[in-house]
């Protein structure tokens, strides 16, 4: 498998870094691949731009920085404005559909799949698990990490007492992702 480069973007407080960390952890620790993570915060964490660069490969990764991602996972309009132009032609955009409006800047041939992750998280009980919904959506659409691996990555990353809600959030995103991936491309 060639290296897959991923950028997760959003606002501080949305769990952008944790989302990227869980994807990398699922791939490296539980699916026995290699992964790297680069995280970038704005001057203040909450409400400012925030992104994570994740690379996943079957071999040791020599260069961890992501300039032109194969997959973009975006949770805010600012992140879309900042990163959509970097998506590789034919790449995959996964986005929070109630927070991000797509436009003509989406590269030609790119596939874009949206999810109302914030609404799903609120319906499950807490808005703050939206990043876990997104992580599940990522796994469901891409299959880059296995369902078992990402479940283990979530369980080993979240605080004690929050596991059940986080698992429900993950499965909600995963199932929605499977459905979206199977739907005909528009």
């Amino acid at each position: 498998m060639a290296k897959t480069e991923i950028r997760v973007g959003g606002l501080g407080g949305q769990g952008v870094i944790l989302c990227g960390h869980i994807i990398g952890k699922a791939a490296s620790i539980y699916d026995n691949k290699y992964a790297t993570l680069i995280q970038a915060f704005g001057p203040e964490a909450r409400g400012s731009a925030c992104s994570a660069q994740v690379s996943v490969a079957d071999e040791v990764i020599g260069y961890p920085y992501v300039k032109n991602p194969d997959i973009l996972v975006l949770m805010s309009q600012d992140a879309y404005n900042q990163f959509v132009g970097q998506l590789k032609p034919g790449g995959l955009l996964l986005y929070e559909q109630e927070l991000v409006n797509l436009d003509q800047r989406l590269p030609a041939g790119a596939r874009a799949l949206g999810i109302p992750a914030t609404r799903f998280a609120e319906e499950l009980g807490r808005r703050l698990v939206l990043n876990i919904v997104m992580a599940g959506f990522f796994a469901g659409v891409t299959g880059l990490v296995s369902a078992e691996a990402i479940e283990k990555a979530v369980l080993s990353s979240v605080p004690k007492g929050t596991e059940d809600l986080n698992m429900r959030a993950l499965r909600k995103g995963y199932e929605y992702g499977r459905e979206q991936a199977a739907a005909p491309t528009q």
Partner: protein
Amino acid sequence: MHLKGFPQPVTLRDGTEVVIRPLRAIDGAELLEFYRAFTEEERQFLRDDVSSPEWIERFLKKVDFEEVVSLVAELDGAIVGETTLYRTRYGWTRHVGEIRVAVARDLRRKGLGIALSRAVVKLATNLGIEKMVVQVVENQVGARHTFEKLGFTQEATLRAHVKDIRGLKRDLLVLSNDVSHIWHAMEAMVADYSPMHE
């Protein structure tokens, strides 16, 4: 809503095995039988006239597993315990859940009350509720100890707030359990999480 983790088998202190599961719409007759077995004095500790078929019918309609969640304990096809979680999805107390628990007399002091309470507290936490409250009358010592074991503390006393069957006014205690610290940890992780801190 589908509740995960149920049915949940529980072995009580005397070896009796019961099953805790979500209330079903078809449980009306068993639920009525359960509440009718309470003495009139015991029913004074309950807020509603649970021995009336009309109340049972209304309650079954209210249990939507969103704002009203009900678990029952079942033994040999009969309901021997019931717990309800009430919450609102909107407004300034949307983070608060109110819990009520009732246990059949024959099953008291055997650990069923705490098993039901533990199940509903866990359920409430998983639903994202940050604070749980329960009301007990001052002389409901067993119920009070059960909730204290689960982390509840007395937050308020409503003086002479309830009247028992003999017309004697008693204090109503409001116990609460703030589990928001669990979610504060998650909020901190989501706000500025750094794997370097692991």
